[in-house]
Structure formats: C-alpha cells, structure tokens
C-alpha cells in the first residue's frame, strides 16, 4: 500500500465532505463520530451523522459482519441528509472496510486511512484475508494510507480498543483543521461521568493522532463555515421526539422496547421524571397502548412509541381510541418490513397500514415529520390535534431520522404547550358525553372526576349519551361524526410548498424523512436546467389541500419513497398489475392523476445521486413517450 514519502502539504478547499469511521462493534466509533460531529457543528458547519449498526449485538471481530461505525457529512451550508459516497474513511481493519466497499458506500477515489498492523501480521490467515480483501477492493482507485493506529494508541493506553477511536479523532481533527479546544470541551462533556484520568488520556490520544497526521500526511481539507448567531441544538430524531414529547406536556410514555424506536424511551426514561412524568415499560405493545389510552381517558394525554411489529399489535387498541374518541399519540419509528424484516434499517412501508390498518371505518390523523427539527415539533402538533379532535394521531418517523444527527434552530418553548390542570369543573346540566357539533363532529370531553359527568364509554356503537345503540341512524351518525373531524382538520391546513418552480416537466413528491435527499437531487437537476420541482408531504391523513391543482401544473408526477413497488416491464408486471409505492397509490386514488413512482428498499437512506439518476431517467422516458405520441 502507498505510504506517504515526502511531506509537502496541500490544502484543498471543499464545500462539504463525507467521512466514515469504520470499526468492529465495541471499538467506540460512535463516540469518535459524536465528538467530531459536535465539533463541526460548534464551528458552524452543517452536519449530518448516520450510524452503521451491525445485525448482532457483538459479532465476531475482524469480519465483514462486525462492521460498526459512523458516517459524518459536514459542509459549509446546511446538511440535510447523508449525501452520496464517502470521500474519506478511517478503517480499523480491512474486513469492515470491505463490507463498506461492497455496499458501494465509498467514493471511487476515496482516501482510506487504514490500520497498518494487519498487512504483515504474523498470523498467516490474517495476512491472507487481508490480501484477498485488498485484491477485491483494487477495482476502485481508492487511495490507501497505512496508519499504525493500534501501535500509536498503545503508547498511551494499554487497551487499544478503548483508545483507537480517540486517536482516529485526532487524525480527523488535524485533517479538517478542527479547533482542538472545542474538541477538548466535547471530550470533557461526553466523558463527564468518567474519571479525569480517562478524559486526560483521551485528549492525549487525540493530540497524538493530530501529531501523526501532521508528520505523515500531505493533505488537508478546508471546509469553510458560516458563523451564525442563531442558537442551535444538535441531536438525533429519537432524542428530538423524546424532548418534543416533554415539551408538549406529555407525562406518560407507555412503551415496549423495539428497535429502532426504543431510544426515544431511553431518552425519556433519563429525564421525564424531572418533569413529573414517567416511562411505563409494559409487558407488550398491546398493554402499552392500553395503558396510554387509559391514562389519556383519565385526563393525561399519553404517548406510545413503537415500530412496525409493535404497530401491528396496537391495531385493535387504536380502533378503540378512535371509537371512544380518546386522544392518543402513537409514534411509529418505521423500520424495514414486513414482519421482523430489517429491524435496524430504514423503510417507509407503514404508510398504508397507518391509514387503513384497522378493521372497520376508523378515521385518524397521520403525520410524518420531514426533518429532525420537525420530529421535535411533531410531538407538540400531534398532541394538540389529538386533544382538539379527540382522536388518534399517528406520527411516522423512521430509522433514518431516528439515528441521523443534525443541528436545528433551538425551539422557543411555549408554556401553553404544557398540559394545564385536568378539567375537574362540574359538567353543565344536560351536557352529553358525545355532544357532537353536527357541523364539525367535535365535542367536549368529560373527564373522570368531573362532577355530574359520570358515564361509561364503550367500543360498541353508541349514541350521544354514550349508550350502546344498535339503531341504524345512530350508528351512521357516529360514523359520520368521527369522519367529519378529518375534513374539518383538513380545512385548517395549507397546500404544501413546492420546492422549485410551480410548473414544469416533473414534480417529485415525497413524504417524511426523504425531504433532504430529494431536494438536493432536484436542485442538482435544476442547476443542469431540468424543469423539475419537489413537493414533500407531511400530512398523510387527511392529505394536505390543493394537491390536484399543484400536480396538474406538471407534465409528470412521480413519488420517491423508501418502500417497495413493482417495475413495469418486469415479468408479469403491467400498468394493470403493478403494485405502486404507498404514497403513489394513495395519491392516485386522491387525485386520479397517473402518478408514477420510483421506490427502493435497500435498508438504508436514499442517496441524492440515486434520486437524481431516476429523475433524469424519468425525464428521458417521458420525453420519448411524448415524441412517440407526436409521431
């Protein structure tokens, strides 16, 4: 492998860079990335971090399955997604590196700082698999640079696996000219529960990494930052949901552990008791929903957090909440399906089940935050909708938002978000439990404790007095009232914004977490002169108004989603038999416009480049068919 001979530093100025730290699980890549990301953010760069998580808890080291690590994309402006391939990588061994190579995660001329101990390791097997891996990777022209990571680390600590990550941090600090004082502060913060000794040795390791880079590397990158006065926070989507739930005044999170949703409750378990609330870990997802509904019914709007398989189990209880009109907020951090599927990976396949999962007619609100910032605010919005309309609000995020780290404007907390004291005023004479406004279907809740309000709610068909009623008219009445609330809520919404021109050849429509990647891809196409715009939906049930009008101004409309759709032209797949992406299907029914879709379910976030390529391809196709029609 090439190692750097003569030292003659050249500093390249770039608008952004993507870096990977690739290790065995348990070697601390997360901490290294976290500190580096925080540092970049503090220094005014836009940042997006993504975790690389292995399938097993702790797979055998030094294998392709043991890959654990982080991708950090940072740049001069705002960074909204993980971008395309990585430009620089630090790898603790060639097997974990190989796994990234196979996933085509590395840019063709990626610079790879690689642990040098394996190449000439005494163990023949290790040398052999090293050689084979390098052979396989030779197809690309990566620039390999050997770094004695372990050797250098051992000079400072005796257990390298608790130190290599800090040495790597040092390399990055030097290469990207990070401010050491900031790095030190971050280290001090992250290890605040550890001894000063550990903090010091970590800082020492960083310095040695910097020193090594200074002496041995002939390049550095300069990524200018735009210093801003704006106060910002940096966190991942699950943390944002957790804090948002507290900011929204929710005092009970009733959950059952499931990846990738669990960390929301970890965040909450840590702090919610300081806010007069608790996290209740139920025996299963059914009970988790039941406890949340019981609490909401009793006056404390509760949150339940889960992912696909857990959503499946909450199906029946969600229908009950809708039927008895008890407010409930359900957070579904989507993962790969169906069934157990890809537990740690991203997918957007719970849209239709969130809308139609319940037997019977069960209208509910479904919203999907489009950024980590929106994750925070979605909790506040969800609770307000749930209470105002006495219904269930399902919030759909996904593994991409859950683990992606980004900074956003520090929210201005509003005290009105907090739950006021539970209404315990006497019920006005003659007021009924479901006093539906015939226009809006809305009614005031009567909460246990309110004198003169005693009544029994039931999942059976019931009338305004909450009495079981089998009479056709009262059944239809209840149905109508519950459905009406969606139309009323819809009337309060604005048409979605269009990113780009209001008309053109192609409108790319997405929902939820893909906004950053889609906008980036569209911008790329636009700079090349293509008439493409984007529209990212956040309200899925009810859908935002004006869609048909917006869509009709474009010659083609195509959704981009992280879920499955058939490809026309594949065996047996015709316009008629094709199964569409979930949003595309929904929008076809809603607008009767022939909406196409490009979807993919690779178990990882979409890359701007893939989207861009499919935008171009779609434009090509439609051009040719258009010409076809002319001739």
């Amino acid at each position, binding site marked *: 492998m090439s190692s750097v001979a003569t030292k003659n530093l050249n500093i390249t100025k770039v608008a952004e860079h993507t870096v990977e730290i690739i290790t065995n699980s348990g070697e601390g890549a997360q901490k290294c990335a976290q500190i580096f990301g*925080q540092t970049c953010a503090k220094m005014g760069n836009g940042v997006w971090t993504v975790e690389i998580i292995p399938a097993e808890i702790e797979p055998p080291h030094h294998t392709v399955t043991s890959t654990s690590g982080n991708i950090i994309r940072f740049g001069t402006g705002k960074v909204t997604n993980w971008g395309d391939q990585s430009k620089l990588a630090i790898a603790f061994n060639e097997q974990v590196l190989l796994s990234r190579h196979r996933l085509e995660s590395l840019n063709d001329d990626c610079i790879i700082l690689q642990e040098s101990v394996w190449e000439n390791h005494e163990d023949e097997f290790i040398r052999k698999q090293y050689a084979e891996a390098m052979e396989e990777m030779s197809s690309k022209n990566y620039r390999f640079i050997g770094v004695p990571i372990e050797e250098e680390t051992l000079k400072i600590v005796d257990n390298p696996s608790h130190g290599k990550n800090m040495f790597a941090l040092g390399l990055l600090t030097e290469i990207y000219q990070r401010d050491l004082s900031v790095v030190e502060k971050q280290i001090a*913060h992250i290890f605040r529960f550890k001894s000063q000794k550990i903090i010091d040795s970590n800082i020492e390791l960083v310095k040695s990494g910097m020193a090594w880079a200074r002496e041995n590397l002939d390049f550095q990158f300069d990524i200018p930052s735009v210093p801003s006065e704006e*106060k910002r*926070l*940096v*966190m991942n989507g699950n*943390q944002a949901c957790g*804090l948002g739930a*507290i*900011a929204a*005044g929710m*005092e*009970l999170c009733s959950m059952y552990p499931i990846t990738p949703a669990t960390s929301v409750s970890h965040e909450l378990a840590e*702090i919610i008791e*300081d*806010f*007069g609330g*608790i996290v*209740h870990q*139920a*025996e299963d997802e*059914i*009970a*988790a*929903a*039941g*406890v*949340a*509904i*019981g*609490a*909401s*019914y*009793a*006056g*404390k709007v*509760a949150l339940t957090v889960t992912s696909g398989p857990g959503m499946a189990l909450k199906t*029946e*209880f969600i229908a*009950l909440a809708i039927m*008895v009109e008890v407010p409930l907020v359900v957070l579904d951090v989507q993962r790969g399906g169906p069934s157990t599927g890809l537990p740690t990976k991203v997918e957007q396949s719970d849209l239709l089940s969130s809308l139609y999962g319940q037997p019977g007619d069960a209208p509910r609100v479904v919203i999907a935050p489009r950024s980590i910032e929106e994750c925070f605010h979605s909790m506040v919005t969800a609770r307000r909708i749930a209470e105002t309309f006495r219904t269930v609000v399902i919030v759909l995020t996904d593994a991409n938002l859950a683990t992606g780290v980004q*900074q956003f404007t*520090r*929210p201005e*907390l509003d*005290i009105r978000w907090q739950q*006021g004291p539970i209404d315990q005023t006497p019920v006005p004479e003659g007021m009924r439990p479901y006093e539906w406004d015939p226009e809006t279907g809305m009614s005031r809740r009567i909460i*246990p*404790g*309110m*004198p*003169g309000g*005693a*009544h*029994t*709610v039931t*999942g*059976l068909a019931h009338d305004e007095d909450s*009495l*079981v009623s089998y009479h056709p008219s009262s059944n239809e009445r209840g149905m109508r009232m519950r459905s009406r609330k969606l139309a009323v809520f819809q009337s309060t919404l604005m048409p979605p914004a269009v990113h780009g021109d209001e008309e053109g050849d192609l409108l790319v429509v997405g929902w939820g977490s893909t906004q950053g990647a889609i906008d980036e891809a569209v911008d790329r196409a636009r700079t090349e002169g293509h008439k493409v715009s984007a529209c990212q939906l956040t309200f899925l049930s009810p859908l935002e108004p004006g869609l048909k009008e917006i869509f009709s101004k474009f010659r083609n409309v195509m959704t981009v989603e992280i879920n499955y759709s058939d490809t026309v032209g594949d065996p047996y797949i015709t316009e008629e038999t094709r199964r569409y992406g979930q949003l595309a299907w929904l929008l076809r029914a809603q607008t009767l416009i022939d909406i196409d879709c490009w979807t993919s379910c690779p178990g990882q976030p979409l890359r701007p480049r893939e989207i861009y390529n499919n935008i171009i391809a779609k434009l090509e196709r439609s051009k040719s068919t258009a010409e076809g029609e002319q001739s």
Partner: protein
Amino acid sequence: MSSLALSLLDLEADASICLDADDYQRRPGKWCAGCGDFGALNAIKRLLAKEQLVPERMCFVSGIGCSSRFPHYVNAYGFHGIHGRALPLATGVKLARPELDVFVVTGDGDCISIGAGHWIHAIRYNADMVVMMLDNNIYGLTKNQTSPTTPLGYASMTSPRGAQLPPLDPLQATLGVSNASFVAQTADWVPAHLYATLQAAYDHPGFSFIRVLQRCPKFTPDVFQDQVKNPDTTEMLVHEDGVDPPGLEKVYTHRRIHNPKNLDEARSLARRTDMLRLGVFFRDDSLPVYEEVRAVPAVSAEEKVKRMNEVFERYAV
C-alpha cells in the same frame, strides 16, 4: 336454609344501606333472569353505599363479555374496553389518577384466556384496584364456548364432546405470581360473603383479585348446582385478616381458620378439590404498589419550561 332465604336475611341485616345502594345503579342490568352478575352488581352497590363513594371519583373498567357490561349499570365513570384488555386500561387510569377508586370487572375468558398475559403482569404491578373476575366457567356473551375454567368433559359449542383439558385454576395461578397481594374466592349465591369479600378487597392497598363463582343459568346451569344446594360441600376460610360475615356460620358449618399471610398454605388449599373453599386465600398489605413506586413530584408548567431549557443546553452547539 336456601341461599335465597339467606340473602334475604342478610339484606335485612343492613336495610338502611340497601336503600342508598340503588342510587349507585345507573340503569337495570340486562342479563338473563337468574344470572349471577346481578348478585355481583348488588354487592358492589352495597359496598359503594357503605363507603359512600362519590360517583365521579370512581372508575369501573371492563373488557368484553356479559360480565363486562357491568360498568354500564353503575353510577360511576366507566370504561367498557375491548376483550381481554381491561387491566391495561385500568392500570393507565390508576397511573394517571391515583386518587380515583378503580374497579375492574372481567370474565373467565376475558381475564384468564385472552387477557392472561395482562392478568399475570397486573398481579405483579399490584396497582391499587379491586378486580372482580366473574367466573361462570363459560363464554356467555358469544353463546356457549369452552373457557379455561370449564370443567373437564363439560360440553360446549366448541367442544361438543366435552372440554379436553382440566380447568385452569385462577387461584393457584394468581398465587404463583410474585408480588400478588390479595387473592380471594367467593360466590354470587352467598351475597353476605360476596359483599364482605368486596369490602376486604376495597380495604386492601394493592391489586385485589377476587374470583367470583357466578351462575350462568343459560349455559352452565349445573356447574355450581351442588354447591348452591348443599352448603356442606363448601368450606369457609375465616380469619380476622380475611372475611367472616356474621350469620353465615349457621349455614356454612365447615369452617377453617386460615391466616391469609400463609402463602404456602394458601397454595395448597387452593389445590385441594375435596371441597369448594370460599374466603381470602392470601393477603399482604405491605407489598410495593405500582402507582406508588412510580410516583413522581408534580412540576409546574413554568418549572418544566425552565428545566427543558436546561436540557437543551446539553444539546446546544
């Protein structure tokens, strides 16, 4: 002396209460004539009257079944939930509003078949509530299917040639769960005992599980016949920490002093099939109660905003 006559005697005992008791009935129960659920409703009414509970400070939670219709007939807040899930709903109510008196009414199918998982865990949570499992050894509302407590060989629509397994004994199962704090058995045809048991359960701080043997003239007319007809088939477990309603000793002459603190004894008594045993099998008022161990100090909205801003600092860049 017939149990009917007995119940009369025993109503006279405190007629005063019986009057007010009716104020706790919102509307007449809609069960079959002779259904044991009426007895349970009467006993509850008496308890509420005796304790003079305020309707709006109570919540009756149930699942689905004939028995689960109960909340509709009581003058209190009620949540008639879904099948098998009364206990999680009740736990949520209690967590949110510990000051409310929570009563759960469930059936042998609702509680120990589809609801079995919640049942086991609710016993362990030991949230302070009174749980009445009305056990008619059958699925009533769905019209005669085998339940976990249906006697071996007893025919139903789903096992026309008779139940194939020995019944699941709710008492032994409950007594097997860690942190179980109150386990009792009573019968709808012994109103005085039913009432006294409810009183004890209400007085117990924690999860009070009561198995109420309940007659279903419609589908299991004969399962309790002997016990109803002949008090000698029944042994009363009596103790100062349990129940021992006055007057009963005349009818139920088989009496055993059982200290409800003795769990080993409780379990082995629950096992024995020589006689029907009514009484408090186990009681321990000192076990951790879920809503208490989870209690956290209330925080004002202002304080919350202040603290949240502090939390933000940790994430600030």
